């Protein structure tokens, strides 16, 4: 146990170093980088993904995965757009869009929790299906012209210099840290992720916990989708396509194991900061958006490969040392 704690500290230490390097690079290459306004801007550019990454952390620690989040984002945004275009007041359209997210979450968690299908398949078909529903609603049009207050919420600061999405993120972050690291529910999430069977025999409500997580995941994704629509000022069927890759990368790079049971919200926060700074730095170095996506993809693989290789090397050396000691004793 101590061994693992040491490893985690080292992983987060590595993340800190990486963060420092990217921040220093950016600060040296861009004047006015270390200003509050620029940092808010940095967050604002991918705020929707960061918000969803918070709940994705819970899901992956629980040894599950939710590939449908980006499609749910698109689905809820298109629901709001569709209703508004058909004469519903924007307040109601937003409320129904959130409910659409809840419904998607209930649908996912029915198949995962009640029928017992693997979350990979359920959310993969969700990835296809919810995107399909988004297209059913808006077809190949783009719906815009939302009321002023709605666009302002997405694009203008709300309190001081902070826009609404950023405030929501910080509130959710505090909740996420408290629930995951300091509450009974959070412990259950870890226990189930470590060993589902043991958790079940210990009287943990495995099914209920998973269902709560998947409903929350889709609900937060729907909220993020609406925020995205407000920021863009329009919705389209293909909005947020491929975001699941970025979101999962943020979580895994933060040291959360894809096999579940380990990782912390702090690590994810660090990796979010790294990815934001990295994207900004690559932008400064004139790399296109596609190259940035490729680099993030490579980072995703490396974030799992590196500890594996390190572990193999370490066990190889331990074996060597043990052998040497044996021969020394003989």
């Amino acid at each position, binding site marked *: 146990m101590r061994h693992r704690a040491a490893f985690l500290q080292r992983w987060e230490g590595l993340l800190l170093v990486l963060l420092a390097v990217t921040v220093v690079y950016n600060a040296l290459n861009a004047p006015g980088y270390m200003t509050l306004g620029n940092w808010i801007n940095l967050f604002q550019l991918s705020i929707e993904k960061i918000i969803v990454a918070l709940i994705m952390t819970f899901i992956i620690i629980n040894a599950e995965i939710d590939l449908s989040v980006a499609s749910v984002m698109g689905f809820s945004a298109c629901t709001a757009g569709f209703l508004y275009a058909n004469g519903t007041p924007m307040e109601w359209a937003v409320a129904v869009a959130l409910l659409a997210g809840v419904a998607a979450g209930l649908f996912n968690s029915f198949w995962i929790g009640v029928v017992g299908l693997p979350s990979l398949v359920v959310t993969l078909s969700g990835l296809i299906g919810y995107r399909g529903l988004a297209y059913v609603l808006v077809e190949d049009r783009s719906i815009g012209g939302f009321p002023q207050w709605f666009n302002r919420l997405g694009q203008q600061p709300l309190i001081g210099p902070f826009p609404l999405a950023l405030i929501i993120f910080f509130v959710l972050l505090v909740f996420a840290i408290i629930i995951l690291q300091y509450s009974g529910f959070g412990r259950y999430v870890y226990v189930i992720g470590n060993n589902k069977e043991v958790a079940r025999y210990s009287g943990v409500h495995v099914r209920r916990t998973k269902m709560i997580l998947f409903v929350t995941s889709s609900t937060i994704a729907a909220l993020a989708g609406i925020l995205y629509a407000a920021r863009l000022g329009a919705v389209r069927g293909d909005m947020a396509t491929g975001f699941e890759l970025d979101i999962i990368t943020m979580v895994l790079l933060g040291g959360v194991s894809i096999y579940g049971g380990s990782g912390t919200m702090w690590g994810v926060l660090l990796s979010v900061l790294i990815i934001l700074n990295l994207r900004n730095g690559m932008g400064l170095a004139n790399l*296109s958006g596609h190259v940035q996506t490729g680099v993030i993809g490579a980072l995703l693989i490396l974030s799992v490969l590196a500890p594996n290789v390190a572990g193999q090397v370490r066990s190889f050396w331990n074996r060597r040392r043990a052998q040497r000691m044996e021969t020394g004793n003989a």
Partner: protein
Amino acid sequence: MNELRRRFQPEQIRELVLIGLILALALFFSTQIENYLHPRTFTRISTSVAVVAIVAVGQTLVILTRNIDLSVGSIVGFTAYATGTMLAANNDLPPLAVVLMAVGMGAAMGALNGVLVAYGRVPAIIVTLGTLAIYRTLLVEFSGAKSVLTSELPRWLVNLPPLNAFSIGAVEIRLLFLIALIVVIAFQILVTYMTWGRRLYAIGSNPEAARVAGFPAQRMVFTAFLLSGALAGLAGFVFLARFGNITVVAGQGIELKSVAAAVVGGVNINGGIGSPFGAFLGALLIDIIDNSLIRWLAISEFWRNALLGLMILLAVATDTVVMNRLRKAWVRHELQTSSASLSVEQGGARHAT
């Protein structure tokens, strides 16, 4: 009943049900769409299914080993684009060399996936989500945002899609469809009759037991990814021949379609169950729905992805609920008959002594 039980395994029953479903669907659409049961419909669906069917066979090999390959769409796009630009620059390249080049490129990309999954011990979903982005990035960088145009391609390639291999009555079997059929049949034979193929099932149904039995599991997972990449490369060539105009988004979404085809075709996502032929039937079913929805006026064609998602769920749900029961019934029956014959033998032996 016993005779039937011996002749049909649950997997075959599932495939028969799928064939029945395909026929029923064709019948249904023929009442809804004018001129549906026309040879031209068959030609249209058979040429469009060729790409996904080839990819789905490779996907099946990977899923059988309890892994998944989400990078195939990017591999299809990359090989289609790369071979297309090479052909546009040099119209005299021999056809066979082009095909081999496409397969080779795909195999190299599949090999990278395989190394990372089998030897790097990184979960397949992570590796292939990553390479999905990386291969697409390579394509975009490589292209400089230019497209391959049909007018730049050599005549033989442009004439390939309408080329007939042979006809059965008025129904024409196009060459591209024949290639897909050959791939399906070859790999069906591989997994049914060859040692390597049988071991693939062993690894997927119980990796630990396969390891104890001494199967080279790592190498086989690597080879499965390599073959999946190579088949995606071949599909990239077919894609190029079929569409001619290749942009940087070519092949996007094929990874999901191939997984869907495999899963609808009875390949279990947890490995060890399913066959290339089943995946082919799955691809066919999906393509019939796709193609017919465009022509069916009752509902909008935009429904097709929503329906596809639901179809995958239902397919997997029936697999877990119905197929597990069927399989258990079969195993129970086999146990009963074998224990009955065993006790008869033992009884006979006791009498003899």
